[in-house]
């Protein structure tokens, strides 16, 4: 964990601890402008009356304590006066100057062990007298807590009511809210567990929440008639089992296997305690005091240690989430234990409030786990989607490849068949004609047959010319041309090293280029009896290529002719142009080509071709004769 995160975690922990321990060190505000009674006369059953300071905590076991509070009034005031007891435990019967005015037991349900309540009562004007008035408070309490009486205030409703309401909220409403919160969390965990019983933490949390619910019996017991007070200790005793569950949860959160005996303790501990109580070996109160409270304290301590070990030693993040409320709960339990053991004076047990922090923390852990698993689900979902998309892409790519290969295969097959047919048929015959003509000394037939064979080669050779393979087509042309010119004694200078790359080449394009070049060479041989022909690839304007055919014959003079028109038409089909330039000695034909040839050859009809297109398309017979005559 990075240092900054450590520090912020620590700060948060300190802040939480401060907030949690607030009730321990921050006293509730008390009325400051009302009449304050800070001392009482204690009249215990068997003691002689003696003045004692308030607040006062005293055992009332087996009986009650009567406290007499005296105050002086100059005159009976016109506005009604109220008596405010900020805190008392657990029940008080109050009388003024001998006449009873209130019994807290009749209105509040906060009895039982969950002691500590507040009271505000009107002092009847008729019972008040000027001079000394005496209020008698008879305190009663159960066996667990002691009787408690805070300082008492006398004043108007405006002076006292806000303080009363604050305490009423904290002592009664908040406890009910805590119980309601636990009920809500219980329902939520129950639902979560129903849908995901595999997660052990859900089940144990549910058990913890359910088992600790009876601790609230005290809140509700007053609703029954007659109130089953005997139930209280047993409700409390169930908590011992809940504390074992707490340890199990701490182990689970820390990622440790839970030993079987600990699980067994969950039912065994409360049952043993209850049996001890029921058998009469110990009194129910004794059962709570001697067994329940120490067990709960030990269990809370053990759970805290486990969570601390998980957080610090094992570095489990969730253990931190558990450790904080456990520490708070431990503090509250120690506080409550100290009250019960009479080491502290105070009527309010904190554990009933703080256990909700624990329930909340566990709920947070559960929600976190749920969130993490959902995120993992999302992640793996996204990953799967990604992989699926990749696979689909791959598949469509393969499919496309397959389709292309199949098309290629068909094309190759056709080409092979055509080549084989031409090879076995026409070309063989042409070769035979050449041999015959040679034997019969018919040079013109021989040359025509040679031309026809070369043209056939150009056609067949172009058939499998692929994209950017114009150079290959040119190489084949060069090979044929070399043999052709060698026969006529013309020197060929060839260089394609500087020809820019041309893409979009199809067999038809390649054949067009070869025919243009062949025409240029034929013209060179026919028109100017050239001795040297130079064919060069050059870079033209940006993105364009040039092929130059130069000869050293008679300079070009006439304005075209069939051959030239033919070349120009073919060049246009390639998206290029043909220029013929006369030079000092000889002629230069420039074929200009775009860097990328058009997708399809422009049909002759779509351009302004002369009407003689059909005638022009015929292989130039004159050219063949011309080469022949040049050779002679």
């Amino acid at each position, binding site marked *: 964990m990075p240092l900054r995160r450590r520090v912020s975690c620590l700060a948060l922990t300190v802040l939480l601890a401060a907030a949690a321990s607030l009730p321990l060190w921050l006293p509730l505000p008390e009325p400051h402008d009302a009449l304050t009674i800070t001392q009482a006369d204690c009249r215990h059953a068997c003691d002689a009356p003696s003045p004692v300071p308030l607040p006062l905590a005293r055992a009332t076991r087996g009986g009650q304590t009567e406290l007499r509070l005296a105050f002086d009034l100059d005159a009976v005031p016109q506005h009604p006066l109220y008596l405010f007891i900020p805190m008392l435990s657990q029940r008080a019967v109050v009388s003024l100057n001998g006449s009873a005015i209130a019994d807290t037991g009749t209105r509040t349900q906060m009895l039982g062990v969950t002691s500590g309540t507040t009271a505000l009562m009107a002092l009847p004007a008729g019972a008040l007298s000027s001079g000394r008035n005496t209020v008698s408070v008879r305190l009663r309490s159960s066996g667990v807590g002691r009787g408690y009486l805070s300082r008492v205030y006398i004043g108007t409703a405006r002076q006292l009511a806000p303080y009363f309401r604050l305490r009423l909220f904290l002592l009664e409403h908040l406890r009910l809210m805590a119980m309601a919160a636990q009920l809500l969390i219980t329902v939520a965990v129950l639902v979560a567990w129903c849908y995901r019983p595999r997660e052990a933490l859900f089940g144990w949390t549910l058990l913890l929440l359910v088992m600790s619910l009876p601790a609230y019996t005290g809140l509700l017991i007053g609703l029954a008639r007659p109130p089953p007070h005997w139930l209280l200790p047993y409700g409390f005793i169930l908590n011992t089992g809940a504390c074992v569950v707490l340890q199990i949860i701490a182990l689970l959160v820390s990622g440790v296997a839970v030993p079987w005996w600990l699980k067994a303790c969950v039912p065994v501990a409360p049952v043993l305690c209850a049996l001890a109580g029921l058998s009469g070996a110990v009194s129910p109160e004794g059962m709570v005091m001697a067994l329940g409270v120490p067990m709960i304290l030990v269990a809370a301590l053990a759970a805290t240690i486990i969570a601390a070990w998980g957080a610090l030693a094992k570095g489990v993040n969730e253990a931190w989430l558990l450790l904080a409320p456990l520490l708070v709960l431990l503090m509250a339990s120690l506080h409550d234990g100290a009250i019960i053991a009479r080491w502290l004076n105070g009527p309010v047990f904190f554990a009933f409030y703080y256990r909700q922090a624990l329930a909340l923390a566990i709920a947070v852990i559960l929600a976190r786990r749920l969130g993490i698993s959902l995120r993992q689900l999302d992640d793996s979902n996204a990953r799967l989607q990604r992989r699926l998309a990749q696979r689909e892409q791959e598949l469509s790519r393969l499919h496309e490849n397959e389709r292309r290969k199949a098309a290629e295969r068909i094309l190759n097959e056709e080409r092979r068949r055509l080549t084989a047919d031409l*090879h076995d048929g026409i070309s063989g015959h042409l070769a035979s004609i050449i041999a015959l003509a040679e034997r019969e000394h018919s040079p013109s037939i021989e040359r025509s047959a040679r031309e026809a064979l070369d043209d056939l080669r150009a056609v067949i050779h172009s058939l499998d010319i692929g994209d950017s393979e114009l150079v*290959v087509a040119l190489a*084949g042309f060069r090979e044929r041309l070399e*043999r052709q010119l060698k026969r006529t004694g013309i020197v060929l200078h060839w260089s394609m090293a500087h020809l820019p790359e041309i893409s979009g080449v199809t067999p038809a394009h390649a054949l067009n280029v070869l025919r243009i070049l062949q025409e240029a060479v034929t013209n060179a041989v026919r028109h100017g009896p050239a001795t040297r022909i130079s064919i060069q690839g050059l870079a033209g304007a940006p993105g364009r290529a040039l092929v130059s055919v130069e000869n050293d014959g008679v300079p070009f003079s006439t304005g075209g002719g069939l051959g030239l028109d033919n070349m120009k038409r073919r060049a246009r089909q390639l998206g290029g142009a043909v220029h013929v330039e006369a030079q000092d000695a000889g002629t230069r034909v420039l074929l200009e080509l775009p860097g990328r040839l058009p997708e399809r050859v422009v049909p002759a009809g779509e351009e302004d071709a002369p009407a003689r297109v059909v005638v022009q398309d015929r292989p130039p017979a004159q050219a063949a004769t011309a080469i022949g005559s040049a050779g002679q």
Partner: protein
Amino acid sequence: MKAGGEADDGDSARQALCRMLLIEDDEPLRDRFTRILTSWRGGDLVAACATLGAALGYLQRGDIDLLVTDLRLPDGHGTQAIRVLRALNPAADAMVISVLADESTVIDAIEAGAAGYLVKDADSFELIEAIEELRAGRSPICPSIARIIVRRLNAVPSTPPSPLAQLLTPRETEVLWGIAKGYTYAELAERLGISRQTVPVHIKNIYRKLEVRNRSEAVFEASRLGVICL
């Protein structure tokens, strides 16, 4: 069918001469090649045959140095004659006469053991030059055939390199590529910094590597045709 007019030349001359066998079924062409081969002083045309069957009889003698054969024959295929020749006399050369010289059958012939090829309309000086080159350990090649071989080398990019591609040296592959791109021997030699005479030597080596290395196939072919007894 015999047309070898100089089969009965003097013994001393015959020692040094290259003993040639011609197989061509087309009469005018056979006649033409016979004339050209006969006119070559460096060779001795043993026979000019029109069929594979007739040629096998001469091949069986085992003393043919150079076979010049057409591919499609009335009773078989030229590659069969080449295999027999190479099986019986590994030192002998075979040359294919093809009319187009660029179809894959030429590659088949090379794989059968041919180390050269001729176009049927080749002029006499071309033909003689090619034979002399071949006898000197150099083989001819044209761009289209180089291209077919190159394509065969990198047939499928995803599959592991073919044994053939591993067999050829980087220099041989460079030579093939250069030829396929249309460089002449001289241009290629200059580019690669080798002598012009070395280029066709590389080509002959490539042909020899392309020849099906498994001799048992050739021997089987020969025995099937009844030329040798196993």
